């Protein structure tokens, strides 16, 4: 389970101005469900996930992951999570299998258990055929399979996906989404951040729309549509983030 209560993250930018990257975000994600964080680029999705994965500390608020407080027990939180994003890369000079083994060791796996888990994820994601190839030589799809293997190797109860399909072709995206659905069916708690409406509609049981660091609306896809009286999630989202098209603006000016 993942829970956040009014978490905030404020930065001071290069000009000395205080920037509120995240400001009072609260939500709860449960096991066997996919919780979606829907927002534009720069909305605060990645910052929220970084707080939850203990890479950065919140300026205010409280968050727990798998029962551990992110500030008080960061190592225990990290041992309970798997994190995947298209922006996270692999070590180019290591073979695919070496990368998987390395992260297994960092997550405390060793000996027979490590061997078994490596063999399992390599079988499951069909990595054997390119397991001894350097990551620099892998295709995007192959890299993403290794990334998934690295994420699930230690069998964490909580999984974070930060725009996991950004920049991927439709086939690789499909693999990633199927994997997320499978993880949900296995009872994992999943937080999925995206700006792609179709993915959110397909995967998410609960969604929070995040914009300029604040939550603008929460609920199921249907509830968001009802709240905004819109027929599509895309339109509901645009309403929640108070998007005004240039066409609408011109029409208002003319009137």
């Amino acid at each position, binding site marked *: 389970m993942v829970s956040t209560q009014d978490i905030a993250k404020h*930065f001071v930018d290069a000009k000395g101005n205080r920037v509120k990257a995240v400001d009072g975000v609260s939500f709860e994600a449960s096991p066997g469900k996919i919780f979606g964080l829907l927002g534009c680029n720069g909305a605060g999705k990645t910052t929220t996930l*970084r707080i939850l*994965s*203990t*890479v*950065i*500390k919140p300026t205010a608020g409280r968050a727990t992951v798998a029962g551990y407080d992110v500030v008080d027990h960061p*190592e*225990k939180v*990290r*041992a309970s*999570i798997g*994190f995947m*994003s298209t*922006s*996270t*890369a*692999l*070590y*180019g*000079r*290591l073979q695919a299998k*070496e990368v998987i083994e*390395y*992260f297994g*060791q*960092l*997550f*405390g796996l060793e000996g027979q258990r490590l061997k078994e888990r490596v063999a399992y994820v390599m079988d499951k994601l069909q990595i054997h055929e390119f397991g001894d190839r*350097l990551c620099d030589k892998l295709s995007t799809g192959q890299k993403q399979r290794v990334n998934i293997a*690295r994420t699930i190797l230690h069998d964490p109860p909580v999984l974070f996906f930060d725009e996991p399909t950004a920049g991927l072709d439709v086939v690789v995206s499909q693999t990633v989404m199927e994997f997320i659905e499978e993880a949900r069916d296995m009872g994992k708690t999943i937080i999925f951040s995206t700006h792609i409406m179709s993915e959110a509609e397909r995967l998410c049981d609960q969604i929070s729309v995040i914009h300029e660091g604040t939550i603008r609306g929460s609920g199921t896809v249907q509830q968001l549509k009802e709240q905004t009286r819109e027929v599509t999630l895309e339109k509901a989202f645009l309403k929640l983030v108070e998007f005004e098209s240039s066409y609408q603006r011109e029409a208002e000016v003319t009137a």
Partner: protein
Amino acid sequence: MNYVKQVYLKEVREMLRDKRTRSMAFFGPIFMMILFVCGFGSILGSVSKTQNQTIHVLKTENPLTQLLEKAFKVVYVENEQAGEELIRKGDAKVFLAFGAQTTGGQLDIDAYFDPKAQGAQIVLSQVSGIIETANKKALEQTLTSSGLPATAAEPVKLVKKEVQIGEKGAGEFIVSMLPYLIVIWAFYGGFSMATDLVAGEKEKATLETLLISPVTRTQIVLGKFFALASLCLASSVSSLIGFMLVSLLKLPGTSFLLKGGLGITPTAAIVTILVLLPTVAMFAACLLSFSTYAKNAREAQSYISLASFVVVVPAAFSQLIGLTDAANQGWVNFVPVLNTANNIRNALLGKPDWIGTAITVTISGLIAALLLVVVVRLFNREEVLTRV
């Protein structure tokens, strides 16, 4: 500790697979040392032999020219103006114009040369030596024919007695250059990999996944630090291997520079390792601190390039320290980098200074520890990930 080992092993594996690191840290020092010793040895060996030198002489019947012909390649010139012109154009190093014998029996030889040309000065000193020997012989003959002992030509004679300190070994030239090269390679060997270790990971987006593992940031830093220190040490040792290879393979030029052998005694080796270990730790921590602070690999390279002057200047001074009294003065042991090079130098000369070595190890170790604390602090800041 196990996590530190895992990070260390992964970094070492990556280093060994990187062509740039292999050439910079392993093959580079070996190749450069071979090139350096062979190149300098050949040039200096050639310069020291008078048979390889050419002098220009004004055409003359003077019997002294036969003496010069035995020592040099002699080229005769028709007149003084032509000889002077050859010097001006740089076509001749020294031009000798024999004058007329004075009534007192003294023969004046005008030696034309360019005072800025080092080669000309070497030839001139060789010519002076030959003329001095000829003068001495002539004086001895005159004294003997007058019934006086030949030793009257030299009422006071300076007898040079070499005192062998330690084992016979490499000459002063190698002794002054070798510590410099060992220290320099300890720094430059780690240069290329240092930028990759943190700044490169940030740039390539592999750092975030590493930070999300349960390993503490201090453990990650220590793993990376030990890997970089190992690389710095390997690079330094590679330069020594290159030096040994030159001697073992008896490559051209070594006969002049390594007349007395390598000169690395077991004591010198022990002192070298003792002072080198904290020095590589200091360099590794320094390189890693820049890599951790920088936004990307390029920025890290800029910082490290600037920092390299702080290493090069004191290391370079160690080459000249033999010309001063500073080599044996205590304060040198408190100057980072210079203390390391000077201790290696003294050990190679067969004069190990154990107290100086202890001070050097302590100073370098303290600086390394301090820099490591800085790296750990930098790495524990959120900016390690967010400052892009």
